[in-house]
């Protein structure tokens, strides 16, 4: 795993979990790799991996079955979706708005762009 | 005892022997070939190997290979690149000195004598097939043989000490110090002799000087000799032990 330096590694591991859950590689109520396995996978100190697991537990995305391991929560997918949506609305969008004002981009232009993008994807699917 | 464990000593000896396998095999092959040739030569003259003939070649080979073996075994201690790993190996200094003494002393003597016996006997067998030589046992355990073993065990601790004490040119420095010790002893004896026999004017005549040498060697005889050798050996071994304890990289 390549780390970028701006975000703490444990949060980058959390993102890696989110990605796997959103992409349905890890399903709800399914066992996920252990702390040690994750540490080896992403080449980090197991203490850092534990921090990521604790964070995800606090978010109720995963839970621990004593002696068995960690599992994705019952509605983990939706939880991740909510978390990522909030992140999008609160972090990514304000950034985009800031740039839009700076470059004097009108909302209609963005809307056209977006429609076109959706169209393209629909075409590809067909 | 936690710091003295026979099995660990055994493992340490095994380690030394295995790691030096290549060197040992080469050295023993060279010795075997040399001995074989020399014995064949001695058979050519009178078709028999007498103790003196065998010992005159055996003693040189035995002492030289012994000294070389001591320095090979202790090479790891003074090589900058390998002494980290050697000194951090969980073996106590008592165990190290015991193992090294045993390997370069008893184990070496037994293996080397046995090999020379085999080679010599083989040479005699070969001789008995290709010449008029009658097959006869090799006379190895002569009086001289035991004298030689005693001598080797006497000098062994000195070389052990030298091999650990000196970092560079270990063999040269050890030999040099040995020479100095011997010269010192001789000088000391001469002085002693000269002082005690002041009236004879020791340092003037050749004859008396040589008598002093003779007396120097006679000084240690009987029980005194055993005592001296025993004390000297244990002192050198103790000194070697402390050198191991104090060894830093």
């Amino acid at each position, binding site marked *: 795993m390549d780390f970028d330096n*701006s975000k703490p590694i444990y949060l980058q591991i959390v993102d890696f979990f989110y990605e796997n859950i959103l992409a349905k590689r890890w399903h709800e109520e399914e066992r996920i790799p252990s702390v040690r396995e994750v540490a080896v996978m992403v080449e980090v100190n197991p203490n850092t991996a534990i921090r990521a697991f604790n964070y995800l537990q606090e978010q109720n995305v995963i839970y621990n079955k004593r002696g068995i391991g960690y599992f994705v929560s019952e509605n983990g997918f939706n939880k991740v979706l909510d978390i990522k949506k909030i992140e999008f609305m609160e972090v990514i969008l304000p950034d985009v708005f800031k740039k839009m004002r700076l470059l004097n981009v009108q909302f209609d232009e963005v809307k056209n762009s977006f429609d076109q993008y959706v169209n393209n994807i629909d075409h590809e699917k067909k | 005892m936690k710091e003295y464990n026979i099995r660990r000593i055994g493992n340490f000896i095994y380690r030394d022997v295995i*790691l030096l396998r290549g060197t040992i095999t080469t050295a023993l092959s060279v010795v075997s070939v040399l001995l074989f040739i020399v014995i064949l030569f001695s058979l050519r003259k009178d078709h028999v190997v007498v103790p003196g003939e065998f010992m005159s070649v055996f003693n040189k080979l035995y002492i030289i290979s012994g000294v070389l073996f001591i320095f090979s075994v202790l090479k790891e201690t003074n090589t900058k690149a*390998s002494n980290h790993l050697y000194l951090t190996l969980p073996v106590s200094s008592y165990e190290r000195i015991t193992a090294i003494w045993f390997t370069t002393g008893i184990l070496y003597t037994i293996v080397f004598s046995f090999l020379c016996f085999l080679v010599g006997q083989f040479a005699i067998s070969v001789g008995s097939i290709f010449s008029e030589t009658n097959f006869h046992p090799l006379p190895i355990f002569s009086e001289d043989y035991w004298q030689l073993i005693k001598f080797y065990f006497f000098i062994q601790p000195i070389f052990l000490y030298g091999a650990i004490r000196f970092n560079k040119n270990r063999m040269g420095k050890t030999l040099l110090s040995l020479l100095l010790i011997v010269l010192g002893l001789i000088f000391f004896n001469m002085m002693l002799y000269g002082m005690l026999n002041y009236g004879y004017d020791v340092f003037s005549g050749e004859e008396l000087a040589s008598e002093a040498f003779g007396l120097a060697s006679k000084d240690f005889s009987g029980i005194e000799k055993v005592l001296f050798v025993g004390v000297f050996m244990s002192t050198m071994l103790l000194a070697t032990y402390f050198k191991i304890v104090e060894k830093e*990289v």
Partner: protein
Amino acid sequence: MIQIDNIRFYYPNSKVILNNVSLHFTTGNIYGLFGKNGEGKSTLMKIMTGLLFPKAGYCRILNENTFKRSVKCLQDVFIVPEEFELPGVKISTYERVNSTFYPEFSKDQFYKLIKEFKLSIDQKISTLSFGQKKKVLIAFGIATNTRLLLMDEPTNGLDIPSKSQFRKIMASSVDQGKCIVISTHQVRDLHSLINHVVILDNSNVTFDQPLSTISEYLWFGKPNQDDRASIIYSETSYGGKAVLMRKDHDETEVDLELLFNAVISQPDQINAILKNMYHDERV
């Protein structure tokens, strides 16, 4: 695990390398030991393994002085030196003759690690490159399962894929019972493994903090205009990164290189901040 008290060390006829150094290493951590060239990292590691004797002070493992090199002590320590030579025997032979001295040695683990490092136990060590020899020794060191594992520049001589293998292997072998100390210049190779930073400078310990504390109080990155006041150290190059007091900024990953430079230039200020604004007595 290992307690170092007021150690002083110098080589014969040369300047003092370690002066009044005190450190405490505990199990469950991977320590990164940093310092400029010649600041005594390797010397400290040699003292910790009893290969050098401190001129003053103590270095103890479980209450036993390391310079005594007692069996009990040595069974709990393994050092992977920066430069070394191994005997020219097969890897399996090397394992056979040396492993018997370590009570917790795991042969399975050693063979597994050798395989992970893409070596074969039948290879003769004399035919290996230096990097491969290093892998043999690292694998052996991990498999001894000593509680204290010291590594001096372990990634020197490893090629790029091997560095990743090394990180994976380290991540899998650390556990609560082990204490690992790694000294290195190659900060980037190891920054994801280390969870505690020790920096030696001017013959002394100038910095000794867990990463969690560092990321709690310091912020690493490109500062905005309004952050000017809280800059502790910044790179001089244009758009350079800086170390700031974190205050209410989001947590960032600790940039070890930046931290190292900051500590070397502003040791007192940084230590004061990490001690939660209590003034260091030396200030």
